[in-house]
């Protein structure tokens, strides 16, 4: 059996600076993700939304953010690698980390590519160019 990029199911993420540092650390350690943080990139630290999006697109990464301005109005679906947005209802870092862990384990994470995903505490809504589907997290 030969190695193929298609077999690599890790999602490539660019974690926005608005995500708490302990959460970013947890996500970076998750085997489901290949994560990079905006806070570690001096050129993007405090940078504009467009700069973050452009970097993510150039490096084939999905943007993981809390900011609600990363939506399909500002960034139409299929014109970027993808956006994963954490719901504002996840107020604390521990809630955010728990929601991301559930998303990683729910079996639908690969659908986040080229789509806009909204993660809540108990479900995720994935919006592609064709449809919007909501998946409840098990348990």
């Amino acid at each position, binding site marked *: 059996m030969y190695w193929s990029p298609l077999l690599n199911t890790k999602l490539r993420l660019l974690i926005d*600076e*608005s995500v*708490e540092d*302990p959460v970013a650390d947890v996500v970076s350690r998750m085997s489901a993700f290949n994560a990079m943080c905006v806070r570690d990139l001096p050129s993007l630290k405090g940078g504009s939304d467009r700069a973050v999006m452009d970097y993510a697109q150039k490096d084939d990464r999905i943007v993981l953010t809390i900011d609600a*301005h990363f939506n399909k109005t500002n960034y139409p679906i299929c014109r970027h690698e993808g956006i994963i947005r954490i719901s504002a209802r996840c107020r604390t870092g521990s809630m955010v980390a728990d929601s991301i862990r559930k998303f990683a384990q729910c079996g639908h994470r690969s659908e986040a590519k080229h789509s806009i995903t909204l993660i809540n505490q108990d479900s995720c809504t994935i919006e592609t160019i064709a449809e919007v589907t909501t998946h409840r997290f098990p348990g």
Partner: protein
Amino acid sequence: MTCRERRDDLYVRPAFSRWTTGPCREEQQDGWLTAVAGETSRPKDFDVPFSSVLENAKQLSLFVDMDSEVLGGTPRVGGTRIPVYRVLNAIDEYGSIDGATIAYRSLTVEQVRDAVQFAAHVLESPVEHEAETVD
């Protein structure tokens, strides 16, 4: 009814008890009703545009910044992409100012304090201050 009797009348009403101290109002103004009208709080002015409230609060802050290109204009800690509301959430989660610097290691205590002050200014702004200045 004399001035003193009026004061005693008010003294049994806790809501107006602060009026029982200080100079007699009748000594300063023409009539008691005028004085009461001056002391009665008026409706707050909530018609102030929120954008101007944010701008005013920003003027008073050292570290909070707003830029339509960054976080869509959401108030944030200057030089970062950390919104003020997440700083407040971090304080809520960790229970202290120092806790917010654990959640966001790039922030200083001064920046966190300034974010809290900014939020306070925003909540304080849409108030008719004139009612408060009447003696």
